């Protein structure tokens, strides 16, 4: 049985996406949650580049660059938010951030 590269890539990307989503829910550390966001975007990138290749359309590769850009902005903002939070409260455990609970 032949597994074709496009099927392999799409399934791999979807698996990494799901791993990111599951990790985002089960981990309590804020930094690991941010890493899981990176995993989600990385899974999407693999699917985008594979579809760009099979369709022969450079739009997919261009959108890849936009996603990298959004990931960079999100990582920078998220990390500096967690640094401020750490200065304020001495912890970045997500379960202990209960100020907004009604």
């Amino acid at each position, binding site marked *: 049985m*032949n*597994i*074709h*590269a*496009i099927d*392999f*890539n799409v399934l*791999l990307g*979807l*698996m*990494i*996406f*799901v*791993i990111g*989503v*599951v990790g985002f*829910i089960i*981990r*309590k*550390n804020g*930094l690991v949650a941010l*890493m*899981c966001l*990176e*995993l989600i975007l*990385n899974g999407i*990138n*693999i699917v985008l*580049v*594979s579809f*760009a*290749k*099979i*369709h*022969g*359309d*450079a*739009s*997919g*590769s*261009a959108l*890849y*660059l*936009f996603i*990298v*850009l*959004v990931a*960079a*902005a999100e*990582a*920078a*903002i998220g*990390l*500096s938010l967690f*640094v*401020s939070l*750490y*200065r304020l409260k001495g*912890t*970045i455990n997500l379960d202990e951030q209960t100020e907004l609970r009604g």
Partner: protein
Amino acid sequence: MIEALNIFHLLVGVAVLFSSVMVITAPTPVVSALFLLASLFLTGALYFSMGAYFVGAVQILIYAGAIAVLFVFLLMLLDLKSFRFQVPVGKMKVVLCSLSGVAFFVVLAGGYFYEIRQQGQFLIEDFNMSQVSLLAENISTVLLSKYMVAFQVAGFLILASVLGVVVLGKTDKKDEANS
């Protein structure tokens, strides 16, 4: 003709998957960050094995070289002692989340196979032939013509995030004097 998956591509894909799983199961954030670095780097290798050289280079330079290193750098700034003991997560929660994750994956994969593959949205033979969409020349042509406005807006997004980081990172002089 349909070529089978080459062995390098397969091995790199399995390694990406393994390091992604390790990111969410590693005991400490430092180990998670290092596995994230490995995962992003190996994704670059996956792009190279697909023939996407420009995309792979961007992946390694920006993703693995800047974003993942930012995580490792931040872990050095924070106090590592508070991370030494992992907060226990309920076993029930892990099992239920994993099961829902598997179900979610089945839905996504089913959508791919029954909606995209069965409907014949693309010819599978094209995968090994076309390199056109992956050349830096064609990517930049599309980026600067079709996505010109989005490209400019993305520049402003970066500018806004830089300003946001500066504002968030700035310590207030008055607060320091009071404390």
